[in-house]
């Protein structure tokens, strides 16, 4: 199974390395937010905002946005592969169905890892002064989430089978999840009903954990809760993705 994963991963990585433009394409939106929206937060007060500390609140949100964008749209790739016949051709081999999907999601994890690191470094000249250990742990946590998100996205790609229904679906799911996790502004500023909704969103816990990590509060309850929720979500989505890969008759 390890061999199978590495064969699929190697195949996808070769394609990515030969067309690295996608890595940068995924970065444009978070970087625009960083440059054109982030500076506004310096002059706000409340919810941990204010001055350069704002960056340690805002950048973790952007990391989540990045993971959701790149991971969520991973399924676009598999729709093309369905049309090309690559998915069928791999499914008639004795390889494990889970290898076929994990090999692919690992490519997305690498992409998001690279993008997240670039994003953190770009924020430094604007005034980001994170706990570096915490920033590193946050990038790792976002990669873990990306593993599950990409699996789910591939599964949805296989189910929907065409870009015209896939794009609105991903947009429709990710935008509320993104807003409800307090990526732009902390949920501490929210009215009570909005805060409740946010608590029902598993991604909120990741943002809270990453903010605590950026601030260097490794022992914070948010950190462990965020890691646990993200790991559980990722395991569940990967399982669901593999199961769909096995069952869907494309």
């Amino acid at each position: 199974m390890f061999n199978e994963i590495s064969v699929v991963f190697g195949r996808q990585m070769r394609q990515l390395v030969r067309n690295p433009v996608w890595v940068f394409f995924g970065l444009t939106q978070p970087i625009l937010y960083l440059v054109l929206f982030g500076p506004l937060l310096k002059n706000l007060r409340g919810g941990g905002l204010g001055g350069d500390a704002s960056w340690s609140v805002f950048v973790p949100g952007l990391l989540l946005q990045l993971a959701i964008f790149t991971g969520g749209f991973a399924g676009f790739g598999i729709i093309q592969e369905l049309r090309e016949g690559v998915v069928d051709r791999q499914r008639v081999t004795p390889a494990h169905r889970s290898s076929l999907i994990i090999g692919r999601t690992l490519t997305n994890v690498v992409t998001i890892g690279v993008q997240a690191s670039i994003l953190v470094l770009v924020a430094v000249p604007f005034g980001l002064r994170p706990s570096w250990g915490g920033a590193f742990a946050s990038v790792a946590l976002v990669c873990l989430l990306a593993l599950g998100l990409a699996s789910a996205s591939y599964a949805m790609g296989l189910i929907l089978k065409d870009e015209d229904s896939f794009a609105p679906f991903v947009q429709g799911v990710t935008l509320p999840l993104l807003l409800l996790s307090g990526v732009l502004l902390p949920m501490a500023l929210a009215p009570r009903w909005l805060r409740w909704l946010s608590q029902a969103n598993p991604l909120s816990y990741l943002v809270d954990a990453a903010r605590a990590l950026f601030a260097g509060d490794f022992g914070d309850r948010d950190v462990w809760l965020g890691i646990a929720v993200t790991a559980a979500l990722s395991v569940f989505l990967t399982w669901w993705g593999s199961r769909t890969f096995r069952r869907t008759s494309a």
Partner: protein
Amino acid sequence: MIHARGLTRAFRTKAGPVTAVAGIDLDVAPGEIVGLLGPNGAGKTTTLRMLTTLLPLTAGTATVAGADLRTAPREVRRRIGYVAQIGAAPAPGTRLGEELIAQARLQGLSKADAAARLAELAPRLDLAGLEQRALSELSGGQRRRFDVALGLMHRPQLVFLDEPTTGLDPQSRANLWQHIRSLRDEHGATVVLTTHYLDEADALADRILVMDHGKIVADDTPDALKRRVSGDVITVRVKGGLAESEQAARGAVDVRDVHHHEDTLLITVDDGDTALAPLLRALDAAGVGLMAVSVSRPTLDDVFLTLTGRSLREDDVA
């Protein structure tokens, strides 16, 4: 090599359930080349996708290459090769040699075996020297031979080909036919292929299964099928004397049917090649002035029309 009973596949659609394959029985002996022939939507591809484990059966049982399709799909996959219908344009960043090796490794070959197999197979399919070529830069014929190679890397004993030559120019088609024949003749593989071209089934298959509306409506050798279905047509243009010509023709050979059309006589016989000489001698003896003679074999349209009462063309438009 294949024993299938009551193979059925139903799909749910918005308009209600659709039975794509309606309980077919199928037997293929080792070393046979079998052609599944039929119009679009007849259930050929669905049948192939069930036999290759890509689609679960709605009902029925099948043993493929010695393994049970329902209980041991992985074992089936290990033993079969599958060449799908031609797909969309390949993504950039994929290269022929790498793709074949990746496929072989998923089929269970080691790195070294996969490389050795590539070196052996590429020249056989006229792909030698193209290993570094991007898939997006292959010609139609090269792309199809690459597709065939994908299905052969692990030396399967049973190979399924779904419309192997659709969209190819005549030269590439003939070339690919040769490669498909060599699968059996030189490597002892059993081959099952789908096609909607009669000439393709005729050129390749030992046996043709004609499918329509999810059922097998005929199962025979290509020659027997064509003879049984409509016979050959000998077209004779004469200088007057159509009635005498018809009489002479009926006296000379075993005629199934005769039609007149202006100065032309259309004579349907079982085997045009053997009927031609006695027919011409008789017409000559009757003093009929011959202007032109031709023999035509039945087309898929003729075969189909006789078997199903519908023309294949109408079906393609629908």
